[in-house]
């Protein structure tokens, strides 16, 4: 199979997140920005197999999922920068990017909260029998929250076309997973609930693409599946957070040695899908795309204060 399309998406996410970090340092990104760099292979591996009308739901660390599912980088960045042209008119920000027209039903600031919502989205597809797949991405810490477990049961009981993607990046903010979980992990738990599961190296794009192809196929046939993807969070919990209090430099270096992009580049060159020069060109094109997104976002106005009271309700007072 050809890996260049996935590579482009991964690189877009990497360059996008680097830019968000820069803009955050420059004071142009309000609030927190939880970056996805280092985890690109997971979102891209899964979304590679999705149709435009399939649905995804995401987390506080959601930029990568949105871009992988086809969100416009310019409108995404505008949202992250609080501009009126952002997908959510500047009301959501980094933790709440949503692009319904692309099947992106929203990042979420509450750990595990999008999982129950995803059961309903999947149930809607099941009831309509429309062959759509719903994917819910979540971190390793979501496995500690009750709603995750309740939702596994719903998915199993009702045979929901729902793919659970656990991105085990080893940390919840500062606490490593061994200090938070006593059991055998997300896949073992999902199996006890009757789901099919697979453990994948989430830093290996090829492995992610393979496992996801299988998983999306199974879900399209109507079986809920859980993928547990091992990966590493590269930066702080959010772009401004230093990690020295809880993570050694060596640990991070080892992590970054497994860079999913670098590994995929080697593979592309080795199997003759691209030359180093072509990769440099792709990189330049993607940087230009991110430049363009930044230009768009910077030139976009902030919302008018009056917009603050819009979008609370869909209907007028007293109407049905």
């Amino acid at each position, binding site marked *: 199979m050809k890996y260049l399309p996935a590579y482009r998406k991964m690189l877009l996410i990497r360059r996008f997140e680097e830019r968000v970090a820069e803009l955050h340092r420059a004071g142009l990104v309000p609030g927190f920005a939880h970056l996805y760099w280092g985890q690109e292979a997971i979102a891209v591996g899964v979304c590679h197999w999705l149709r435009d009308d399939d649905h995804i739901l995401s987390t506080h660390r959601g930029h990568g999922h949105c871009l992988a599912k086809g969100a416009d980088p310019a409108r995404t960045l505008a949202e992250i920068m609080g501009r009126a042209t952002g997908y959510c008119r500047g009301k959501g920000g980094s933790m709440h990017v949503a692009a319904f027209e692309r099947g992106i039903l*929203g990042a979420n600031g*509450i750990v595990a909260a999008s999982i*129950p919502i995803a059961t309903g989205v999947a149930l809607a597809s099941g009831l309509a029998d429309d062959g759509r797949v719903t994917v819910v991405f979540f971190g390793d810490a979501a496995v500690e929250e009750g709603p995750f477990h309740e939702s596994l049961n719903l998915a199993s009981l009702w045979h929901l076309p729902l793919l659970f993607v656990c991105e085990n990046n080893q940390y919840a903010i500062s606490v490593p997973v061994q200090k938070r979980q006593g059991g055998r992990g997300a896949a073992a738990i999902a199996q006890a609930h009757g789901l099919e599961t697979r453990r994948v190296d989430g830093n290996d794009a090829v492995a992610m693409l393979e496992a996801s192809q299988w998983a999306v196929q199974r879900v399209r046939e109507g079986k809920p599946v859980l993928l547990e993807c091992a990966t590493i969070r590269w930066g702080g919990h959010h772009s401004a957070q230093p990690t020295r209090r809880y993570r050694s430099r060596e640990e991070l270096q080892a992590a970054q040695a497994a860079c999913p992009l670098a590994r995929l580049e080697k593979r592309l060159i080795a199997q003759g899908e691209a030359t180093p020069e072509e990769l440099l060109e792709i990189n330049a094109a993607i940087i230009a795309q991110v430049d363009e997104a930044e230009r768009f976002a910077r030139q976009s106005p902030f919302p008018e204060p009056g917009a603050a009271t819009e979008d609370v309700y869909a209907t007028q007072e007293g109407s049905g």
Partner: protein
Amino acid sequence: MPEITYAAALNRALAEAMREDPKVLILGEDIGSLGGIFTVTDGLLAEFGPERIRETPLSEASFMGCGIGLALCGWRPVVEIMFSDFLTMCMDQLCNQAAKLRYMSGGQATIPLTVRAPIGARNSAAAQHSQSPQAWFAHTPGLRVVLPATPADALGLLATAIECDDPVVVLEHKLLYGEKGLVPAGRHRVPLGKAEVKRPGTDLTLIGLSRMTQIALQAAEELANQDVDAEVVDLRSLVPLDRETVLASVARTRRAVVVDEGVIDFGVTAEIAALISTELFGELLAPVSRVGALATPVPFSPPLEKAVIPQVEDVTAAAWKCMQGKPTR
């Protein structure tokens, strides 16, 4: 007009909505063959089948979320939470998700979700099955909150709630389920956000909601025997709140007693009393009087339950003090 119970009226609203719109479905515990523990979904399984009368595991957080997801995809789910006390199990889904998703997405999300749950003390159900938490939800922007006091309003408000494109919390009262009342035979809708004068009067205004409207009506009868002519306003909706009807009534009577079954402190009566006191400043003949539950969990033993929950005589006593211009609380 047929006379039916409040539970039957709710049942009719559900059945009619499901017949009219194939996108209406119900999620909840024991709503199938049992017909709901208060009989509200009686017979629906037989007519609509298990896909649309979807019995759930005991997982309030996730089946509330499931309702939200269905709503995002164009369904009109009705989520039944067996007792309103159990809404504590799904507060995040209701108050951080359903209430906020439309706003956070800049209007992309539309969530035509109806949440039904019974409030109130009934026959010593004790502290974890007797709560009246309406103030929590009225304080949560993004939700609409209604509390029917009669069978006709139960039918009309629930029907409107299901048709509404926003999340609506319909709080029903356990002691009203068995109460009968006249209900229009044909199509009947009660708009959200419209209070109703349930009894006209001139001397003072009793403002109630849910079962406390019925208590206020009984109090008004007693007061009438003593030549006090009380008007009874039933709020019906807390969000939107019909400030006009409340203020118009009290502007005339110049005295108000607010009655709610929730705890008084930081509860519904505070908002209504503050509203009236501010808007009709200088025009009242007495301070607004507030009647509600004492600041305790609801006790089990019957005499204790009675001591905590507002009774007709608490309302008449407040009304008398109000007639005499004395502050009460």
